[in-house]
């Protein structure tokens, strides 16, 4: 029990600290790296709470895709972050106030949480007992059987997204030299080397 508490405070402490570093570090690349750290710690918290699926999803989707994309964008785009950051302290009080209001609202929402009695009685797909099945298993059971239709449709939508990205952005340039292994392997000394006699005292 004490071990759980230690790990909980470790993960949440690191998550909050790295979230703070995301907005306070000078180098934007460091910010993104701290963001990844925050995501990983949040994922650990999810797993500790028994939501393995959400935890793994957070790592796969946010760390694996979104954060890496951010990193690319930050490195590729020429944004003057020092310029963006000017007046940072000036806006601090307003920012802190907005943050506090959001925090208060969240507490109120969580505090006043009621599930509608009519909705619990008639849900389309009730949650199985978590003692019998892990939540990955529970999702897998319905995702590939009952909801296989939706699963396939989502796949088709992703295919269209991929086709669209290629149609709109891929350009075949004429004068780009690409690696062609067959041509490289087929070269022999006759085509690759040219022997010239150079007279002494003169250049080529």
């Amino acid at each position, binding site marked *: 029990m004490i071990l759980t508490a230690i790990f909980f405070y470790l993960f949440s402490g690191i998550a909050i600290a790295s979230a703070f570093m995301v907005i306070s570090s000078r180098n934007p690349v460091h910010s993104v790296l701290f963001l990844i750290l925050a995501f990983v710690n949040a994922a650990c918290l999810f797993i500790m709470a028994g939501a393995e699926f959400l935890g793994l999803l957070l790592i796969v989707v946010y760390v694996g895709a979104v954060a890496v994309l951010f990193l690319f964008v930050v490195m590729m785009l020429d944004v003057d972050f020092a310029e963006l950051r000017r007046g940072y302290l000036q806006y601090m009080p307003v920012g802190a106030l907005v943050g506090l209001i959001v925090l208060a609202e969240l507490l109120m929402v969580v505090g006043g949480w009621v599930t509608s009695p009519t909705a619990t*009685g008639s849900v389309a797909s009730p949650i199985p007992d978590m003692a019998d099945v892990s939540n990955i298993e529970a999702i897998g059971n319905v995702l590939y059987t009952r909801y296989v239709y939706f699963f396939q449709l989502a796949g088709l939508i992703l*295919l269209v997204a991929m086709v669209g990205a290629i149609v709109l952005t891929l350009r075949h340039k004429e004068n780009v030299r690409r690696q062609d292994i067959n041509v490289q392997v087929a070269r022999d000394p006759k085509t690759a080397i040219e022997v010239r006699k150079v007279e002494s005292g003169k250049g080529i």
Partner: protein
Amino acid sequence: MQETMQSVMSVQNLSLLVPELWLSIGAMVLLMIGVFSGPKSTPHVTGLSIALLVAACAWLFMKEEGGLAMNGSFILDPFARLMKIITLVGSTLAIAMSVNYIRRENFEQFEFPVLVLTATLGMMLMISANDLISLYLGLELQSLSLYVLASINRDSVRSTEAGLKYFVLGALSSGMLLYGASLIYGFTGQIGFAEIAQAIVGTDRSLGLIFGLVFLLAGFAFKISAVPFHMWTPDVYEGAPTPVTAFFAAAPKIAAMAMLVRVVIGAFEPVTLDWQQIIVFISIASMVLGAFAAIGQSNIKRLMAYSSIGHMGFALVGLAAGTQSGVNGVIIYLLIYMAMTVGTFACILAMRRKDGMVEEISDLSGLATTNPIMALFLTILMFSLAGIPPLAGFFAKYFVFVAAIESGLYALAIIGVLASVVGAFYYLRIIKIMWFDEPADEFVPMAIELKVVLGASGLFVAFYVFFAGLVSEVTATAAASLFL
């Protein structure tokens, strides 16, 4: 678990999805053909995709039985079958009309027919959707394909702008729709349309449910380009390549309207009074804006955009009635609207001089002397769009207005008739320009496929009165299937 396995995999189940399976597998195969044989395969891919759409359409004609599939997420009833056939015909004609354009404008992208196929697949899934998740997935499949199609001419600034505008606004509207769907799920605990209707019948309507309904309808209004969610339409119609615009005008609106009808009648029948007010408002706003804003247009594609906004308003008049005869009116309206729009776009695609496409209304001047047959057919279509008897457009308007009057919506019907009179002005102006103005330069001769489409559409519109009874019989069965 055993039971779910059986119900998912049973053959009877999948047999209802045959046209959808054809289209999805066919689209992937055609994509592979295109990728491995390069741009020169475009004509073959185009031909094969037309064949696929025709086959799907023929299957729907032949197959009599219907029912639920995929655990009740997919429904094939007479309404779904008829709307799918109309949509498929619209898509097929849109691809067929693009053949000449693709050849002339060096628009050699095999992805164009493939994306039309996936968009059509999305529309069919939308029409057959029987719960909120399948509705949303079908809608996204359709919308995503349409965003790409709008900007497929990526070297043109206007096409790119059209695509971007459509994408940003479309994503926003999808978000609203999804928010509405989640509220409805939250307040009823159900996603199936019939189950939602069951959950809300007899209980006090909750505020959350009405909120969800409003957001859902806002999302739908965007997809059918009804006022106040119409802003994207003129720019997208003008900016997109003309065959794409023809496709936009013909197919997606029919599918979105079918989906709207199924949702409000199937799931929200117990709260008819609540959605009726919203539909009445967007209907009036669309009819009035469509009539007045089109007057000042000089570009014929923009004009058709405002015309389509107005026509969606007229179709909504039937839905506002909320009765079986109203839905019957909507179906007839959509069928006739598709026929008229496809014919008009065949004419717009034929507006080509030696130095390229033209799209100003003034370019049509004196068409009656330079190309009398095209002028005659376009005149028939314009009269029909204006709703002049005995052409098809008159019957379309007649049925929706009669349904509105039967339900006591007199104000709506009167405003609709007045808007229709104002709208007649700009259709008649085109006729006047064609017949009485000084002839402009001649167009190059029309391509054969455009002639066929224009001829078929013109004859359908002109002689609709002779087979109106037959059409009404089919549409009445389709409408009745929603009110079981």
